[in-house]
C-alpha cells in the first residue's frame, strides 16, 4: 500500500508537469500580451515592462525560470495586479468557490442519492419515471438557466434570497443550488443503474433466502455493493463543479476563483492563468487519487500495490 501511494504521487507530479508545460506554451497563442489591454503604453514603456517581467527573454528561458520557481513553491507575480503574488490571489479567492462548490456537492450527492435509490427500488413505477425525469432535466438544462430562473423568481419576484454579490452566507445559497442540479442528476442516474444491477444479482436472492428482512437486504447487501462504483463519479463531478463555477460565479458576482480565472484570461494575466490551471489540475488529480484509494478500501476484491491475496 505504501509503495503504491508513493508510486502514485510520482505519477501525479509528472502529470502536473505535463499540464503546466502544455498550458505554458498554449498561452502564447492567446492574442495580445499582458500589456496590450488597458491603456496605451509607449514603445519604451512596453520594453521596460517586458524586461521587468522577463518577457523579453526567449520562451525556453521563460519556461525554465517558471519551472524553477514552481519547484520552490513560487507561482510568481501577477502581471496585472501590482505586487500581488499568484498564491495570495488564489488564497483570497478560494473561500467563496470552496463554499459554493462544497455545498453543491453535499446537496447534490444527498438529493441524487435519495432520488437514485427511490428510482431503483420503485423500478418502472411512477416514482422511477419521476426521478428519471428530474435527472434528465438536471443533465440537459445548463446551470446558467437555473441560475437565471432562480434569480428571477427566488430573488426578484419573491425576494427570498439576494440576487447577486457576496456579503454573507445567504449569498451562497442560490449559486450552490444552481451548481447542484448537475450533481443531483449525475449521482441519481449513477446510483439508479448501479442499484438495479446489484438488485439483479444472485447474492441478493441468497440474502433474501436467509430470511433477513428486505430492509436489511437493501442496506447491508445492495447499497454497500452499489455505492462502491459510485465513488468513481467524484472525479468527473469535481470537473463539472469547477467548470460550473466559472459561469455561476460570473452570474452571481461571486468573488471566487472561477471569476478570477475568466478575468485573468481576458487580460492575459499569464502567471495567474497558469497558477489557477495548475491549482484546478492538482485538485482534480488529487481527487482521482483519493477515489482510487477509497475504492481499494471499499472493495475487498481489489488489492493495492501487489499485496498478495491468496486464493484457496
Amino acid at each position, binding site marked *: 500500500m505504501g509503495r503504491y501511494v508513493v508510486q502514485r504521487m510520482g505519477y501525479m507530479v509528472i502529470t502536473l508537469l505535463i499540464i503546466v508545460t502544455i498550458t505554458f506554451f498554449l498561452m502564447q497563442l492567446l492574442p495580445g500580451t499582458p500589456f496590450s489591454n488597458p491603456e496605451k503604453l509607449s514603445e519604451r514603456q512596453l520594453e521596460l515592462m517586458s524586461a521587468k517581467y522577463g518577457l523579453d527573454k526567449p520562451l525556453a528561458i521563460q519556461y525554465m525560470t517558471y519551472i524553477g520557481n514552481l519547484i520552490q513553491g513560487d507561482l510568481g507575480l501577477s502581471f496585472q495586479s501590482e505586487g500581488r503574488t499568484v498564491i495570495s490571489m488564489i488564497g483570497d479567492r478560494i473561500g467563496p468557490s470552496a463554499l459554493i462548490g462544497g455545498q453543491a456537492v453535499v446537496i447534490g450527492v444527498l438529493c441524487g442519492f435519495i432520488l437514485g435509490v427511490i428510482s431503483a427500488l420503485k423500478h418502472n413505477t411512477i416514482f422511477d419515471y419521476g426521478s428519471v425525469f428530474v435527472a434528465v432535466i438536471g443533465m440537459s438544462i445548463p446551470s446558467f438557466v437555473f441560475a437565471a430562473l432562480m434569480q428571477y423568481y427566488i430573488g426578484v419576484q419573491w425576494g427570498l434570497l439576494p440576487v447577486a454579490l457576496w456579503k454573507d452566507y445567504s449569498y451562497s445559497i442560490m449559486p450552490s443550488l444552481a451548481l447542484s442540479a448537475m450533481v443531483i442528476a449525475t449521482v441519481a442516474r449513477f446510483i439508479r443503474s448501479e442499484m438495479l444491477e446489484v438488485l439483479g444479482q444472485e447474492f441478493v436472492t441468497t440474502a*433474501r433466502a436467509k430470511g*433477513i428482512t428486505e430492509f436489511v437486504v437493501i442496506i447491508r447487501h445492495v447499497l454497500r455493493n452499489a455505492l462502491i462504483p459510485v465513488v468513481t463519479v467524484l472525479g468527473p463531478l469535481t470537473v463539472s463543479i469547477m467548470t460550473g463555477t466559472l459561469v455561476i460565479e460570473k452570474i452571481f458576482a461571486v468573488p471566487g476563483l472561477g471569476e478570477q480565472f475568466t478575468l485573468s484570461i481576458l487580460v492575459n494575466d499569464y502567471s495567474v492563468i497558469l497558477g489557477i490551471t495548475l491549482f484546478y489540475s492538482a485538485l482534480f488529480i488529487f481527487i482521482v487519487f483519493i477515489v482510487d484509494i477509497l475504492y481499494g478500501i471499499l472493495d475487498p476484491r481489489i488489492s493495492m500495490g501487489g499485496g498478495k491475496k491468496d486464493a484457496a
Partner: protein
Amino acid sequence: MGETILSVDNLDVSFQTNSGLIKAVRGVSFDLKKGETLAIVGESGSGKSVTAKSIMQLLPKQSTRIDSGSIVYGGNDLLEYGNKEIEKIRGKEIAMVFQDPMTSLNPTMKIGKQVMEGLIKHNNIRKKEAKKRSIELLTEVGIPYAEERMNSFPHEFSGGMRQRVVIAMALACDPKVLIADEPTTALDVTIQAQILNLMKELQKKTGTSILIITHDLGVVVNMAQRIAVMYAGEIVETGTLREIFYKPKHPYTWGLLQSMPKMHQDQSVPLIPIAGSPPDVSLMHDGCPFAARCPYVMKVCHNHKPDQTQISVTHAAACWLEDDWAPEIKQPEKIGGVSNS
C-alpha cells in the same frame, strides 16, 4: 414412504414482460416427503428454478404473477404468507442453495458474517454464539481452518469451497427442507462428487428433505429416490428412480434418457439428441407441450392436454399413449442408466 412435508399443487406462475406474458410454470404438482430426496429434471428453461423460487417467494414481485395453486408447508399455504411470515420460513424451515457459487455470495462481505446473518435472525442468539456456531458449521462442511477463514472474502475461495460455504449458510438453522438448484452445475467433476456426498452425509445426520434441481442424470442417480421430469413448465412424468430409469413412459423422458451420456457406456453407441427445441412458453396452446417434438405424436396431442395417468402408486405420466385406446407402440430399446441387454 413417510409423511409429506411440502406439497405443491397445481402451481401456475407467469411473468409479465415487455414481450408479453410468459407462462413459465403450468399446473405443476408434487409432494416432497420427510427425509427423501426428490429430483426435478428437465432442459434449460423448463421452469425448474421458477418452481423452486416460488416456494420461498423469491421471484421478482413486480413482474411475477402466481395465477393459481398452493404450496402447503406445515398445514399452511406459503403463497398466502405476507413478508413477515415468509421471512420466518426462509432459511429457518426451508433453505436454498443456488447454482453458481461465484455469484451467490456477497462479494464485499466476509463469509463469516454471511453465515452468521441467518443464525442471528432466526435463533435469536448473540453475535458471539453465532460466531461459534458458524465456525462449527464451516468445519462441518469441510472448510479447513474455519476460524481464520471466517474473515475471508468470497473471492479468496475456490468455487467448490464457496459452494461449501453456501451449503453451510443454508444448513445454519437446521431447515426441514433444502432446495438445491443445480448445486454442482458450475463446478468441475471431482468437486461435484464431493459436494453431492457432503449433501448426502448432512442429510443422513439431520434428516432434511432435499429437493434437488438438475439436468444431470448422474446427479439424479447419485442423490434422489424420486424424480419429477419437467418439460416446458409442466411435470410430464414422476416416479421412483427405478421407474423412471427402467420403465419410463413419457416420450420426452425417453428422449432425455437417450440424450444423456452414461457411465460405462460403450463409446460406439451414439447419444441421440431430442430433435427440435423447447417450445416458446409464451405461445403455448392447449395440447401436450411436447407434441411438436414427439416422434409418436397423434392427432389428439395437438389439441388436448393429456391428464396424468397413474401407472403405479408412485409412477404417473401425462401422455396420451398411456390412454386406454392409444395404439401400442414399441419403446426405443436402449434407454436409461443401464442398457436393457
